[in-house]
């Protein structure tokens, strides 16, 4: 009997499907990064020195400026390179995930092929500019 497997180039594994998978995986990545921020904050003493809102704020964007107004006495561990990388990863993944979500919804409502291309282009520009502004803030302040 013939093999009942389709080779990679004949199984419809195209850009649409890659982005479909990306959206699922990026959602999981966001949960993971949020947990890293949340657990990291608790390990660094947030339980005694922060209220829950501040902990969540840190978890969603682990930026040292978010702990300046809290009761954290020693800000050093919160400004480590590791947290800048976590924050950057979260920013990039969340922006790409969100913008792709917008594109998917826009694809439902825009019926012309050119209209879709224009919206995709605008969305990509929006994603790039938002990511760059975010990275600038994370790495310079």
């Amino acid at each position: 009997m013939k093999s009942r497997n389709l080779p990679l180039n004949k199984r419809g594994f195209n850009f649409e499907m890659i982005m479909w998978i990306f959206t699922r995986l990026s959602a999981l990545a966001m949960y993971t990064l949020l947990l890293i921020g949340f657990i990291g904050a608790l390990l660094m003493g947030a339980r005694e020195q922060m209220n829950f809102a501040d902990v969540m704020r840190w978890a969603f964007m682990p930026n040292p400026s978010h702990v300046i107004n809290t009761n954290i006495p020693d800000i050093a561990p919160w400004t480590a390179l590791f947290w800048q990388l976590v924050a950057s990863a979260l920013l990039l993944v969340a922006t790409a995930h969100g913008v792709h979500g917008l594109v998917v919804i826009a694809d439902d409502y825009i019926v012309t092929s050119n209209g879709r291309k224009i919206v995709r282009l605008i969305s990509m520009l929006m994603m790039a500019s938002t990511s760059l502004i975010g990275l600038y803030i994370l790495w310079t302040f």
Partner: protein
Amino acid sequence: MNVTLKVFRYNPDVDKKWHYDTFNIEAQPTDRVLDLLEYVKGYLDGTLTFRRSCAHGVCGSDAMRINGKNSLACKTLVRDLGEKITVDPILGLPVKKDLIVDMEPFFDNYKKVLPWFINDSPLPADGKERLQSPEQRERFDDSTKCILCACCTTSCPSFWASDDYLGPAALVAAHRFIFDSRDEAAAERIEIIAETHGLARCHTAFNCTMACPRDIQVTKAIGELKMLTITGKLE
């Protein structure tokens, strides 16, 4: 029991806008919505227009929105709906008259997935049948139950938004042939359904599965097609 039946009415020759007509009917709890519509057409208003054929849940002609839910009028009992029943045409397709919609966009999408058996290989040595094991048949058994009533496709938010989207019924038809061990055009079909308006447009709303009068696990079938694009496994 006395039933208040509200029916969507639209006659393009007379009406500028659709409206509802209300009928009070004495009905049995075991009557079907189709019985009520037949009564209205036979005794109260002969101009009421709707599709029906077998009247036993096999032909799929009388799909309509009954109290907001897509179902077949011939399979929906009055006792499950209560004394107030509202009947509308299925959504996402142009209304032609009353409860009749233009099914062409639906069937156009259906045809796109090549919903027929394709096998150009020579017949087996005995010249008779292309044999299939019970397990191989089981693989696509659920999707063979589709009667093309359009309940699933017209309950799908992605299809409401754009009828470019193939829709659940077309994807179920693709599933039926792609996973058939005797068929040889799986690659051709998967290429068609993985296009911009295919698989990726399914947002897993599950409306299709809820609406299917044949209890086909539509979202599961679409999920299997998505997995196929990743794994390539047809078994």
